[in-house]
C-alpha cells in the first residue's frame, strides 16, 4: 500500500508535470514547486477523490491570510500529508 506522501507526490507530478524526483516531503508546494492556486485546485480535487476527504482549502487560506497560520503548516508536503491523515482518521472515527 502506498503511503499518503507517495500518493500525493504522484498526484502533484502528474497534475503539474513536475518530475517525481523533485518532490520530497520537505518541498513547499508553492515556494519550491511553483504550484499556483489554480493548479492546486486540480491537486485538491485529485486528493479529495483519492482519499475520500474534503481538504478545507478555504479555511486554510483564511487562516494564512489572517496571519493565524503559515503557508508552511499546510503546503509543505509532509505537513499537508499529516493533515490528510488527520482528515482520514476523522472520517473513520
Amino acid at each position, binding site marked *: 500500500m502506498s503511503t499518503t506522501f507517495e500518493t500525493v507526490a504522484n498526484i502533484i507530478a502528474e497534475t503539474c508535470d513536475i518530475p517525481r524526483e523533485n518532490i520530497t516531503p520537505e518541498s513547499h508546494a508553492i515556494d519550491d514547486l511553483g504550484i499556483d492556486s*489554480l493548479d492546486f*485546485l486540480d491537486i*485538491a480535487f485529485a486528493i*479529495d*477523490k483519492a482519499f475520500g476527504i*474534503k481538504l478545507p*482549502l*478555504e479555511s486554510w487560506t483564511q487562516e494564512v491570510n489572517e496571519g493565524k497560520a503559515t503557508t508552511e503548516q499546510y503546503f509543505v508536503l509532509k505537513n499537508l500529508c499529516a493533515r490528510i491523515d488527520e482528515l482520514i482518521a476523522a472520517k473513520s472515527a
Partner: protein
Amino acid sequence: MRLEYFQMIDKVVELDLEARTLRTANTVPCESPIFEGHFPGHPLLPGVLLFEIMAQSCGMLLLRLHNYDRMAFLASVDKGKLRTFVVPGQVIDVFARLEHDGSGYARLKAEGRVDGKLVCNADVTLKTMPFPAPELRGYLLSTAERIGMPMGDAVIGTAERAGNLTHV
C-alpha cells in the same frame, strides 16, 4: 438565448437535487451581430460560447445546490470537445452534473446535444466564494426565476437520464 448579454440559458428542463444534475434548453437566436463576423455567409455559434453555455448551466446548478449563498466563477475547462457546428435556430440541450463539491471549488461534467446528437462536452471547474456584490446575487436570483429554476425540494422534468454523459 441573448448572446450579447451573455444570457445563454433559456429555461430549466430538469433539476434533480439528489442526483445533483441540471438540464437546460437553449435556443440559438436566428439573428445576432455575432454571426456577421462568425462567419459571413456561414453563421456558426462560436465554440467559446458553447463552453459558456455549459459553464453557465454548471454554475446555475451549483448556485441552486448552495441555495444562492455563494457565487461560482469559471476557473478551468478540461477535456473540452467541440464536436460539430451549431447554427442559428438550433436548440442546445445541456446536461450538467456535479461530480465533486470541494472546499471553495467544484468540479462538474457537462455536455450539449442538438436533436440528441452530442455537440460539445467538458469537465468544468468552478471556484466558489461569497458574493462580491449584493446586486450580483439579486441578478442571479432574477435569472433563476427567468429560466424557471425550481426552488422547492422536488425533482422536476421527465426527461430520461439514459445516455447522459456517456461520451464524457
